């Protein structure tokens, strides 16, 4: 599976778990709200019922009092209660509309109540009491019995109402128990789901991290291995996700790099062999010719015409030049491929060595080191080659009877800069580039034995090391060659 898909599905799964948790909590809150509504209805029913009961009692007492005393004000409470009871009954009917048992009870209560009204209350109400004699004639004959019946019916009404209330209370208790249970359940489900989400999230994150980081670390190890020159590395990855793709690309890159580098190494070996063959096979016949000429001169020099001797000298000059060219070419080809041994190189001693290896400087010319040169931990040979070529050029091409060649250095923070300055013929700006090309020389070859390899070698050494070479010169005003050399 692709890593992006894996991440997507993981997050989706966790979100799903959280959604379920939220849904469960939402349902629970709905239930609580329903219960609150039920409670409010229920308490309303209880309240109305109580009032109805109380009203009925008042009505009975009012009636009885009226019948006994004939006081009209006692009828007033009866009358207001009967009006209120009608309202209460219709309200209770609305409140219990969703509860068939209660509604049924209510209907029964209503019927009993109505019959009480019709049978007892209305006749009693209709009696015109004699204010002078409590024992009124208009009272029914079996008055005592009548009152007892009335009282009984009223008791039935009270009883029915009590039952209604009891049912209501029982309902409430039941509902409360259910709600409590569901609250408990919701709590458990919420905690479980949240816990599960966290665990799943952490597990997925850990797996993903391990899955990815281990492979990334493998690739980092591979890249480091390449960095330190081991190109024969491959990382194994059987997967089919983005990282596997990256791994395959890296493997391909490393393989290509390895192939190219072994090709390069092979080419270098071939070039070495080529240089070796050139040095031996090209030099041998030249030396042979030189030998034969020297034998002629040794054995027959005295009998040679002057012209022949002169021509022989010309041949020897050309042989010398060819040998120099071959040597220059070899040196150029080998730049950067010698053994790279680092050592402490004292530049002051190195310049002394250079001057000793060169032919003695002609009278009138002075070569001087201007400041104390540094000691650098570096490869000696390239520095030797650079100074040898720069100094020998300055000496060789100097065109005035007297002159000075100065060598000095400047210390920059990360590198040194070395200068070889002369007051010789100088070089025009137009030739700055050309003099660094191989076999380019500004002098006619016949008038001057120069191969045109020296500056090309210097340029190659410095280019290989990413160092800079600069020339500052004008015709007739001498030249300053400078180059940089990294400290470490």
């Amino acid at each position, binding site marked *: 599976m692709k890593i992006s898909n894996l991440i997507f599905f993981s997050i989706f799964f966790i979100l799903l778990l959280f959604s379920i948790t939220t849904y469960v909590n939402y349902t629970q809150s709905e239930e609580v709200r329903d219960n609150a509504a039920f409670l409010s209805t229920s308490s309303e029913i209880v309240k109305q019922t109580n009032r109805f009961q109380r009203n009925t009692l008042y009505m009975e007492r009012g009636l009885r009092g009226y019948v006994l005393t004939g006081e009209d004000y006692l009828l007033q409470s009866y009358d207001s209660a009967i009006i209120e009871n009608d309202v209460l009954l219709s309200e209770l009917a609305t409140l219990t509309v969703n509860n068939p048992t209660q509604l049924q009870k209510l209907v029964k209560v209503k019927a009993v109540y109505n019959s009480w009204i019709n049978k007892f209350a209305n006749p009693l109400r209709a009696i015109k009491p004699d204010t002078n004699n409590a024992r009124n004639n208009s009272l029914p004959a079996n008055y005592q019995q009548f009152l007892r019946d009335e009282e009984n019916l009223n008791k039935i009404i009270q009883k029915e109402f009590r039952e209604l209330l009891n049912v209501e209370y029982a309902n409430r208790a039941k509902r409360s128990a259910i709600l409590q249970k569901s609250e408990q359940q919701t709590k458990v489900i919420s905690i479980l789901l949240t816990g599960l989400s966290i665990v799943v999230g952490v597990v997925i994150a850990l797996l993903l991290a391990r899955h990815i980081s281990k492979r990334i670390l493998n690739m980092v190890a591979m890249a480091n291995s390449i960095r330190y020159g081991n190109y024969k590395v491959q990382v194994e990855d059987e997967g089919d996700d983005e990282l596997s793709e990256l791994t395959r690309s890296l493997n391909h890159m490393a393989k290509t790099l390895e192939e190219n580098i072994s090709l390069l190494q092979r080419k270098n070996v071939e070039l070495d062999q080529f240089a*070796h063959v050139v*040095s*031996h096979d090209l*030099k*041998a016949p030249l*030396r*042979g010719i030189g*030998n*034969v000429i020297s*034998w002629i001169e040794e054995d027959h020099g005295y009998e040679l015409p002057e012209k022949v001797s002169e021509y022989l000298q010309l041949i020897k000059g050309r042989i010398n030049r060819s040998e120099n060219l071959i040597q220059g070419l070899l040196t150029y080809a080998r730049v950067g491929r010698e053994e790279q041994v680092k050592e402490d190189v004292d530049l002051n001693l190195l310049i002394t060595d250079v001057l000793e290896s060169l032919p003695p400087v002609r009278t009138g010319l002075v070569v001087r080191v201007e400041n104390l040169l540094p000691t650098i931990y570096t490869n000696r040979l390239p520095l030797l080659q650079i100074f040898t070529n720069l100094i020998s050029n300055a000496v060789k091409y100097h065109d005035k009877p007297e002159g000075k060649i100065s060598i000095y250095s400047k210390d920059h923070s990360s590198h040194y800069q070395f200068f070889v300055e002369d007051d010789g013929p100088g070089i025009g700006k137009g030739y700055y580039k050309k003099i660094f090309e191989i076999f380019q020389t500004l002098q006619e070859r016949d008038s001057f034995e120069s191969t045109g390899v020296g500056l090309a070698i210097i340029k190659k050494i410095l280019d290989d090391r990413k160092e800079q070479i600069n020339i500052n010169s004008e015709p007739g005003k001498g030249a300053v060659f400078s180059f940089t050399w990294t400290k470490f």
Partner: protein
Amino acid sequence: MKVINILLVEDDELDTIDIKRSLDKMNILYKLHVAKNGEEAIALLKSCPDTSSPTFPNIAIIDINMPRMNGLEFLSVIRSTEEWKNLKSFVLTTSAEKVDREAAEKFGISGYIVKPLKLNNPSSIDAFNLMIDLMNMKD
């Protein structure tokens, strides 16, 4: 003065002449046996009945780069052949390469001379002195 037998294994005629001219200046009596490569040199050695025969070389001067069998291969053959393995050998070559010198020195050579073989060539002078010493010891 005793005649010294010198085996020269060299394919370049000019070099052979050059060596002869140098030897002529050394004030010794010598006989030069020239082989143009390792194979010819082996044939030459084989033509001597034994090491005490008057024509068996006292000293060998061997070039490295030669056709068919080069100097290093020839050295390897004589060093692994019982009756020839003590033959004093000098390598004379145009190659100043470290690899060639090291390869030659493995065969226990008496000197490594970079051409030209001249009395004013520093690498030749030591070799000449050694050669003269070796030849005088034969006397």
